[in-house]
């Protein structure tokens, strides 16, 4: 079962997909299911304004806490707002914040890691210490501290500070992976060749090192989208994330939703299922991607 150490090293040095990536992912039932759910989620979230049966913000107190029916497929909340419409619009919030936070965190982390490995010496030492400090603070705790200190900064209806608060704890995790990969790449002869040719450091990092870490980058990116969506939901649930009245799945569970749900369980069931489904989709897709890019880590060999 074990590969010889030389073969193992070759794999860690230059992670390359075996054949077309998509073919392999679609060959794995769970990964394919994840991808289908992600695409479906994106389409539904994008199309929310056109397919949602009601205005997600419209209150109807005469029809509050109505059980699921043909008029309201998922029932209504304690303000009489249609749950299905709120979940569709909440999907926009989740995808927007999850994808952008993970993208920002992973991209910054990628370049921090590569630069640190490429520069070496004291730059590497200082960056490493700083990343260790960030890693020592639990991810949700770090996000909470940032949310409390930054306040809100709304741009086009998106709280940029919230995105940043979720992205920051991702940076050291990505940086650590990128650095270890970059350390091996750095010693390959083509990098020496590039240095000898007099290419600028920036060009070497962006054009010659980063593309070779694309595999781990895309795996981490997918994995952290599900993390970021979970953190957004947790923060919103705590009343420190997305602000009312913006529909958000975490926010739908907040306040007295739990107490109300003792007589009206649908208020709590559906938003949670939405979160679980999306997190499931990204985790499974991420696992499939990892199997493609790093066959050593396959769950079922």
């Amino acid at each position, binding site marked *: 079962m074990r590969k010889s150490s030389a073969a193992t090293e070759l794999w860690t040095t230059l992670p390359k997909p075996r054949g077309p990536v998509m073919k392999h992912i679609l060959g794995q039932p769970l990964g394919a299911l994840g991808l289908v759910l992600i695409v479906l989620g994106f389409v539904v979230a994008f199309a929310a304004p056109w397919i949602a049966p009601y205005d997600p913000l419209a209150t109807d107190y005469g029809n509050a806490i109505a059980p699921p029916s043909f008029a309201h497929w998922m029932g209504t909340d304690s303000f009489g707002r249609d749950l299905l419409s709120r979940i569709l619009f909440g999907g926009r919030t989740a995808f927007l914040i999850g994808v952008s936070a993970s993208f920002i965190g992973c991209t910054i982390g990628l370049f921090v890691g590569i630069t640190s490995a490429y520069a070496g010496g004291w730059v590497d030492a200082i960056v490493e210490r700083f990343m260790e400090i960030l890693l020592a603070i*639990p991810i949700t705790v770090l996000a909470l501290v940032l949310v409390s200190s930054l306040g809100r900064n709304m741009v086009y209806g998106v709280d940029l500070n919230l995105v940043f608060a979720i992205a920051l704890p991702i940076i050291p995790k990505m940086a650590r992976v990128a650095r270890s990969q970059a350390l091996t790449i750095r010693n390959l002869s083509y990098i020496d060749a590039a240095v000898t040719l007099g290419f600028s450091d920036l060009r070497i990092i962006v054009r010659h090192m980063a593309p070779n870490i694309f595999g781990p980058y895309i795996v981490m990116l997918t994995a952290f989208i599900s993390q970021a969506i979970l953190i957004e939901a947790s923060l919103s649930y705590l009343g420190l994330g997305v602000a009312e009245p913006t529909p958000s799945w975490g926010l739908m569970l907040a306040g007295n939703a739990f107490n109300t749900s003792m007589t009206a369980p649908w208020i709590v069931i559906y938003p949670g299922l939405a979160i679980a489904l999306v997190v499931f989709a990204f985790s499974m897709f991420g696992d499939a991607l990892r199997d493609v890019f790093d066959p050593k880590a396959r769950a079922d060999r």
Partner: protein
Amino acid sequence: MLQFIGRRLLLALPTLLGVATLTFFMLHVLPGDLVETMLRAEGGNPSVELVAAERARLGLDQPLIVQYFEFLKGLAVLDLGQSHWTGKPVAEEIFSRLPVTLEVAALSMIVAIALAIPLGTIAGMYPGSTVDYAIRSFAIAGIALPSFWFGMVVALAMLWYFNWLPPLGTASLFKNPLTALQQLILPAIAVGYRYSAILIRMMRSSVIETMHEDFVRTARAKGLAMRTIIRRHVIPNSLLPTITMIGLEFALLVGSLVVIEQVFSLNGIGRLFIESVSRSDFIVIQGIVMVLTLIFIAVNFLVDLAYAVIDPRIQLG
């Protein structure tokens, strides 16, 4: 051994200092003015003089660097300062709420390990079988379900089917163990399930790997019963990566704890944290981050110690 402990403690100090510095400066970009918020909460519109006087009383009119060194000076003698909101010492606020959080944390960990070791081992013994698929689905669900929501659903199910709700208030595990256990078990299951999902996957893959080791083949060849091989050879050798995971993912547990306390109205650190964030009482936030980081470092330290106990090949030093 003593040398190892001493060195690890010394290594933890720069990290703690770094966390303290980072947290302090992150919190002091704070735009919300605590003093104004506080005085407004007492009613009326505070005058400019009153706000200034309060700021001076709390030491908030000092330059940032002076405040920073005051904070560090306090930390050196384990003084976390006084809450700006209640005026009580931060250490007292934190330590009165720490037991509940630690109890839930310990119970969740027990739930997680009790699920992960047997399930991970069974799945790893028969990879690709129906049992394996069932266990893996169980683990995948644990990763996808947000623990605070899962907690709500479990509580709703208990109410729906057994008409049972956890007793209100906060009972001490030592004075009133039965009531306390009833309050703590649901949050522990919710958080522990999520935590166990990660451990099951780790345990499963390391059992698969161990099953192919030479010593397992030797044990089989000399006719040892499968049960003995699993118990004596496979499980101990597969535990190491799983235990590493317990330490690494402890941060995740802490994050879930902060949220789950809100669901079950437990008066722990998480509750205090959220309250302090909404009051922008950054002295308390700072203290909590320091205590949580310390616990995180301590758990990882214990994990390293556990290595030596489980695997005699590893020598600390």
